[in-house]
């Protein structure tokens, strides 16, 4: 995030795109609700009528995978009606002309055809966003989990840069991280191209620095990213170490991945529960859960905060960092760390953006937002204050490419997947929670009543959902919250793995898989047993209730 969570409540315009905020980030949603109560304008762009649309000023209910069209059309309006910030554009950006030319052909009227959003709504959204001083953009996986995810992000950045909504509070561009420490794992260098602190592996100076720090030679070649590793499993990749992730449940096209894991020579995992991936493991280390160890998590707003040990781990389980130290030493290294605080100290020693942060300081002051280069630096609340970080901000023209898999005769529906309030990722933790399991005990598929009726499906019926890659059986929830022709499914449930269905073909730049769009078919299996699927859900056949 370029801004902080506490700034959201002071925003005057919130443009939320591809984020089911109230379910995926309930606390951020509370801040948004507060801004709306104060009178802020809320614009939600999402193929589903997610809860936030019930309090939104407008809901742009676009066809899945047409974000680029929508964003270009908004840019078109901003350019044609001269709503951009000419001074900011001249002083702080480059590439504006190219984008202005590229969006010429993306008229709101044509966008209406492609996205299914009224041209007037697009104009209104563009005008409102461009002309409100404190206007922020918020997005999550709904933007990035597409074959054109990178383009979507450029499309948003173009809007931010041309309107100059950057470098002041409550504005800017704010990806909401799905998991607790995505930011921190990136910061720490868990990346094939970056050493800790975003120093490039390909940069000989950075390499020399770490060769000196770690006292060994390092590989000059960038590594495989996660998506490449998943495809190379069992092929060029013969051994793997996996900490704290159930890749079989969470990665796309699982059938292929399972074959790969079977062909692997050696697999070590470190986990708190036996998961789907454990079936393929040669060694499993029992790990401590978050309440049983010390360390730090870094949240979406770059705030580093302490994790403190409250109870002892069960049985012989140990903190991941302790296991890692022992494993490295068993492999011939000579690592000496007596505490997580010492590991953090080593991390920041060669990562200047973090150098001012230590466990001692966090313990004393609470969280600190990086960049925080020195011990007396207060941390950084919003990035790009008064300027764009890397000299000039670059606007990038983007062209619409349809999603890789489009609906056709055999698979006439468009399937998207996502998360819900009551479960978390692979649900290894949340499904062991009685209350959460009661609220949403089983997987389901959301289907528009008209598409359901055509297939003879009533609410609660068992149906089979199939795509080119696989098939799962779930119960049907009839709801106008999805568009006609679209279906939606949560990905938390091991017995109905949405990722048997999803497409692992991905974005050409990030390789992030296209979780949000693939072609599917639904058939009725058998009638329901009378039980209502989710009593108390705000999702109703006639659309979300707006209590």
């Amino acid at each position, binding site marked *: 995030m370029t801004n902080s969570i506490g700034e959201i409540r002071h925003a005057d315009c919130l443009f939320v795109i591809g984020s089911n905020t109230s379910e995926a980030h309930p606390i951020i949603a509370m801040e948004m609700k507060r801004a709306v109560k104060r009178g802020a304008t809320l614009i939600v762009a999402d193929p589903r009528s997610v809860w936030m649309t019930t309090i939104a000023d407008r809901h742009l209910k676009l066809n899945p995978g047409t974000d680029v069209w929508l964003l270009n059309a908004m840019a078109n309006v901003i350019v044609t009606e001269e709503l951009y910030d000419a001074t900011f554009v001249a002083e702080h950006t480059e590439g504006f002309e190219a984008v202005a030319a590229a969006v010429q052909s993306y008229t709101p009227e044509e966008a209406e055809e492609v996205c299914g959003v009224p041209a007037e709504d697009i104009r209104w959204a563009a005008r409102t966003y461009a002309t409100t001083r404190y206007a922020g953009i918020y997005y999550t996986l709904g933007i990035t989990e597409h074959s054109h995810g990178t383009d979507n992000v450029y499309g948003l950045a173009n809007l931010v840069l041309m309107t100059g909504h950057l470098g002041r509070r409550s504005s800017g561009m704010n990806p909401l991280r799905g998991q607790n420490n995505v930011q921190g794992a990136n910061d*720490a260098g868990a990346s094939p191209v970056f050493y800790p602190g975003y120093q490039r592996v390909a940069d000989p100076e950075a390499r020399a620095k770490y060769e000196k720090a770690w006292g060994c030679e390092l590989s000059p070649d960038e590594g495989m990213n996660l998506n490449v590793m998943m495809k190379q499993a069992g092929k060029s990749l013969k051994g793997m170490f996996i900490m704290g992730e159930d890749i079989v449940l969470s990665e796309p096209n699982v059938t292929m991945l399972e074959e790969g894991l079977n062909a692997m020579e050696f697999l070590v995992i470190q986990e708190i529960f036996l998961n789907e991936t454990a079936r393929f493991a040669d060694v499993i280390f029992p790990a401590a859960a978050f309440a049983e160890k010390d360390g730090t998590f870094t949240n979406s707003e770059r705030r580093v905060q302490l994790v403190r040990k409250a109870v002892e781990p069960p049985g012989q389980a140990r903190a991941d960092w302790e296991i*890692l130290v022992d494993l490295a030493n068993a492999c011939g290294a000579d690592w000496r760390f007596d505490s997580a605080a010492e590991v953090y100290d080593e991390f920041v020693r060669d990562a200047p953006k973090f150098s001012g942060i230590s466990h001692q300081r966090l313990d004393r002051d609470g969280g600190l937002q990086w960049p925080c280069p020195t011990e007396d630096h207060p941390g950084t609340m919003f990035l790009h204050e008064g300027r764009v970080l890397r000299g000039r901000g670059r606007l990038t023209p983007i062209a619409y490419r349809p999603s890789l898999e489009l609906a056709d005769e055999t698979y006439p529906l468009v399937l998207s997947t996502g998360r819900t309030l009551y479960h978390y990722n692979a649900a290894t933790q949340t499904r062991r929670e009685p209350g959460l399991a009661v609220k949403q005990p089983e997987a389901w598929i959301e289907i528009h009543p008209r598409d359901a009726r055509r297939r003879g499906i009533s609410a609660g019926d068992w149906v089979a959902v199939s795509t080119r890659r696989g098939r799962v059986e779930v119960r049907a929830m009839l709801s106008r919250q999805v568009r006609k022709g679209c279906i939606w499914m949560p990905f938390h449930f091991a017995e109905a793995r949405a990722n048997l269905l999803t497409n692992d073909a991905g974005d050409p730049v990030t390789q992030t898989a296209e979780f949000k769009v693939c072609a599917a078919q639904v058939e009725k299996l058998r009638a329901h047993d009378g039980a209502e699927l989710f009593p108390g859900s705000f999702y109703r056949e006639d659309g979300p209730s707006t209590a």
Partner: protein
Amino acid sequence: MTIMPTKVFESDTVQTMTLDGVPVTFAQGETILEVAERHGKEIPTLCHDSRLDPMGACRTCLVEISGWRRLSPSCATKAEAGMEVETESDRIDRHRKGLLALYAADHPAEVAVTNGRPNELVAMIARYAAPTDWGHLESQRDDRPGDVNPYVGFDAEACIACARCVRYCDEVEAVSAISLANRGSYTTIATVDSLGLLDTTCEMCGGCIDVCPTGAMHEKMPLAALAKPEPDLEKVRTTCNYCGVGCQMDLNVDRDLNDGRGKVVKVTSPPPGTTTNDGNLCVKGRFAYEFLDSHERIMTPLVRSADGQLVDASWEEALRRAADGLRGVAERHGPDALGFISSSRCTVEENYLVQKMARAVFRTNNVHQCAAT
């Protein structure tokens, strides 16, 4: 660490008033209570919460404003330029004692609920030495005996109808699952058709528990775990392990449970205004901690035996097997035949060590966190 105060953005005009005889400054829009708190005055409150619109219902926060005939609730009265406010006086004390005595008659300490939650009302009655001998007003307040939800309990007996829970559910969580019902001293907190919370729009955020000053709204789980009352629990401040918001929360630990290993028996949020989450938590942060004590946790290292089964092993053996296995792959196929996947669920320190292991121990850059977005 503090988060940005709301009022700072709403106005930068600074004005002056007098508080207990001392001139003080305030920003347009601040209430007398806010000004007083900023200047270190202690005014008792029951229905006030910084996250909610003032309601002025409990009247424990009365102050005297010169020239105003009646005492005014400081939580619901905006500061004005030139105002002269007294926060302590005989008149205020007399009123407050009478008011608390009435509360005491409706909610005698002897029948105060024992669900472990601290009771601000009982503490306030003692602190201001309010009379507790006005008898017992036996009000009939309905609760929801049939509500089987596993998290939120409600003891109508302790409810003072301050409506903090209802307003929180309405204004902050914005789902309006609960409402005030009935009248006068029979007022209680109800759901539509007295449904259990699971059957309402309730999202199980537990905010109603957190804001309740008397413990009428309480967690059910610590009772089930036979935990000590909240004041005897040890609070450990930590960061939530679910989404990327990074809520700060206090794990309430009963050290004696789990054979001395300690058990997390409830999660509470730090006070509003002190951390990013402003006193709020979601259902996962507040209630999804039972997995910690699940009997399905992996308790010992496991290794694959010759016949393909996973069997218990010592740490020594498991570490040796893992080291030999990984090193074997590197020797046979080169370091780039190894891949390391770390987790956005684990700490910064652990991610640092995984990448260091890949790079420095095995000489490969094949390292990535799962969930790179």
